[in-house]
């Protein structure tokens, strides 16, 4: 009986593991289209001096810990991205869950040439705890 359970776990792991490898962060891509692409654009380029780029953005490295809270609650302060100032407010999406946020972030972290370390769900949950409202 126990063998059965272990085997199921292994198969399930393989199934999801392989599926994810084929298409990493497909859900993240979908959520990005819905919540982010209007402003940050499909290619993560942003818009002039109004909306900062996500593609090749140093901010993702330097402010990694803040990213989950920014997605959920938005951003009001002026930020520096790749040496340029951006002062527009970013609206957050408070309805996003930790799972949504993890998926979106990991899509951003690995798209358009970005090669940042992916987030784990419990990292995101812990970081969100800090800015909980």
């Amino acid at each position: 009986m126990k063998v059965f359970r272990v085997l199921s776990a292994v198969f399930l792991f393989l199934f999801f593991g392989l599926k994810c490898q084929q298409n990493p962060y497909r859900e993240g891509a979908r959520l990005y289209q819905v919540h982010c692409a209007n402003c940050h654009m499909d290619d993560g380029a942003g818009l002039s001096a109004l909306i900062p780029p996500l593609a090749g953005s140093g901010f993702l490295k330097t402010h990694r810990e803040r990213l989950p809270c920014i997605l959920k609650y938005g951003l009001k302060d002026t930020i520096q991205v790749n040496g340029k100032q951006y002062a527009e407010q970013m609206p957050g999406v408070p309805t996003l869950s930790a799972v949504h946020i993890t998926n979106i972030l990991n899509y951003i972290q690995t798209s358009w040439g970005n090669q940042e370390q992916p987030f784990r769900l419990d990292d995101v949950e812990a970081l969100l705890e800090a800015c909980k409202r």
Partner: protein
Amino acid sequence: MKYILFFGIALTAFWACDPGAPRPLPILGERDVVNGDTVYPTIPDFSFVDQDSQAVTNATFQDKIYVVDFFFIHCPTICPKVKANGLRIYKKYENDPRVGLLSHSIDVKNDTVAALKRHAEKLGIHPERWRLVTGDHDAIYSIADDYFSVATENPGAPGGFDHSGRLILVDKYRHVRAFCDGTNAKDVDRFMQDMDRLLEEQFARR
């Protein structure tokens, strides 16, 4: 005699399928017939104020074709994409005095001249080429109809306004000649080809 007939047929055939002569863009909207003359809908007189506090009227676009849209600065939905595509158009025709761009803010309360100025600077656009205008609330909402665009206040819509992301092409006789979905880069490519065709039609070759 036979040869003349043959020549005539050949010439007609040549004219009929000359691929070098594209059909002109249509004049959009319902036309009227007044005293036997066809009257096309035209953009009425308008007067707005741009990012430099300059008056913008029909005279601003005299002898120009121009591209129109409706937007608001704190728009959380489609505006940035429309602006990004507007910037592509702006960059293509940046040095062409025959082309202008005109963006109307539909948020007359928040998008003051100063706010429009800041927005224009951040977009990096030259006011001579791209006017961001504000003005009388009703005048802006009513001229949206003349451009076949949609602009309504709707507290239920994201940001409080409902509007289409259309870009509209107006010729130098105030006729609307083409439009596209400003959020769709491919549609905007086609729109820029329409602009080239209109320039070809309305201006002598330089």
